[in-house]
């Protein structure tokens, strides 16, 4: 099971993680195009918090006993038993924001521009390494493999 480890000590607040997350979740997946021609409103699913010189990027922790999954009234938010990834099925989501209400990390956003659905980190399932991790210049985000407790 892949998880993203956040190292607060070395986040430099550059927000490249946010930028590449936006690109990844844009239509064209090309940085210039994504920012230029199209959707200036694409949401980053990773969120950098910063006060003074303290900063870190946080995205969905893909909780084991995910509060957002039990709160979801539509069944859109599910946890994949195999990969451990918590995903929101944008087609199913009705935008009731129950998940936002209970996610203790506050990492779900309202995606109003493309329909009305909850937007959150999908751990870039189709990439070997999530783009935020890959593009963090200071390795403040790392990917760690967790032993699967179920087995």
């Amino acid at each position, binding site marked *: 099971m892949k998880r993203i480890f956040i*190292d607060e000590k070395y986040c*430099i607040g550059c*927000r490249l993680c946010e930028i590449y997350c936006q690109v990844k979740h844009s239509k064209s997946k090309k*940085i210039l195009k994504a920012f230029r021609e199209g959707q200036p409103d694409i949401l980053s699913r990773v969120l950098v918090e910063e006060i003074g*010189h303290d900063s870190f990027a946080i995205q969905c922790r893909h909780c084991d006993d995910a509060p957002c999954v039990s709160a979801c009234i539509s069944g859109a938010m599910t946890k994949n038993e195999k990969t451990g990834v918590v995903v929101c099925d944008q087609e199913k989501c009705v935008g009731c924001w129950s998940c936002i209400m209970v996610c203790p990390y506050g990492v779900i956003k309202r995606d109003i521009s493309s329909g009305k659905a909850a937007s959150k980190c999908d751990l870039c399932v189709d990439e070997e390494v999530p783009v935020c991790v890959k593009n963090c210049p200071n390795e403040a985000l790392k990917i760690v493999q967790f032993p699967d407790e179920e087995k």
Partner: protein
Amino acid sequence: MALELNQSEFTVERDLDKCIACEVCVRQCSNDVHEFDADDKTVLSESSKCVGCHRCEELCPTGAITIKKKAAEFKENSNWQAAHIKNIYKQAESGGVILTGMGSDKPHTVYWDHILFNAAQVTNPSIDPLREPMEIKTFICGKPENLKIEKQNGQFKLKSKMGPYLELLTPILFSAMSYGSISLNACKSLAAAAAEYGTFYNTGEGGMHKDLARYAKNTIVQVASGRFGVDRDYLRNSAAVEIKIGQGAKPGIGGHLPGEKVTEDISGTRMIPQGSDAISPAPHHDIYSIEDLAQLIDALKEATDYEKPVGVKVSAVHNIAPIASGIVRAGADYIAIDGFRGGTGAAPQSIRDNVGIPVELALAAVDTRLRQEGIRHRAAIIVAGSIRSSSDVVKAIALGADAVYIATAALIALGCHLCQKCYTGKCNWGIATQDPYLTKRLNPEIGTRRLHSLLRAWSLEIKEMLGGAGINAIESLRGNREHLRGINLNDRELSILGIKHAGEAW
């Protein structure tokens, strides 16, 4: 306020077709060059503040920024060069000494670039280091006059008593850089890389931070004129002790870390009150002669139970050969010679660019002199002051060095772009700064990895060059100047270097 005559050195070029106004550059620049204009939703840059560290250029996700040297600043004049004019403008305003960082960038001869290395052909075979053993292990210590070997129960045993030594897996050490002049993360990277690779780093004159204590086995601790951080534990928590007399970038000059930089952490490490100026006097006030130096060496050996080598670091000055001879006679186990182009965190520009001699000449002179006096074996020689590549290392060893110290090269591996603004404390690469916002930028895990890679790469190249010359152990190269030839050098230079000109056979 009167008009300031300082012209900007760089131009920040922003390709507006590529700029996505993500503000990465705005957040990365500690010199406030870039600014987001909320009205226009664009990023504006003020070139005059740019120091040319290239941080923004490297981090810009779309490659929209190019930092260029500002062209055609003044009317061409071979005498009144731009540097002179600018310095005068600056000083006419500030009335102060012009400070700078890193080694001299003046176009004096770099002798490494005028020396060529040899290779084996026909009459002796070259060696492939990937298939055959190649030894580059190096020992830093004094060696006995001769080796006595005895036979015990049919086995040969070394009878001579060896003094304490440093064992290096590659003839490269990290040179002295104090915590204070560089960030703790930079120190951690150096220490961890040295430990991982099997070589040594040097605390510099700032004492040892508690987080670095675990690297003691790979630490050379420095004792300088300010005696910062020196106590019994400091000396014993080390692999070797080094007395710092001088530094190549500023021979004869002391150091001054302003009180505002003496943070809680640094005050603890240097053992001085927080906020007080850390002044390294120009001379050691207890050393006015070789005899005084001998006393200090003895004292340090005594304090470390004669278990650790004690070395002396001096800058390369005109009289370096007799000085080195004196140092060896005073009992040093090694002598470190720091050349004219050696790096620094802060030095007056006038000194840095005009005082001292290149390390190549100093090394050749010292090695020759010590051999003539028959005392070369008593101490190892480490050279420093702008070793830029593995070939510089090979040439230095052939000229007579046992090993080299690298500092600037190590910092470049950590990201340094040689903007020479170390003294401002605003290093955008998190190296020469104590600002917590900036020091975070150097993740020691990455730093360690990069330094380790550099050591590995250079070591591989050294082995390649040795193999090419048909040499299978670095010991066989040491002081073997026949492997070197000069190019574009005059007779005087060749004779000081003790090498033939290219084209001359054995």
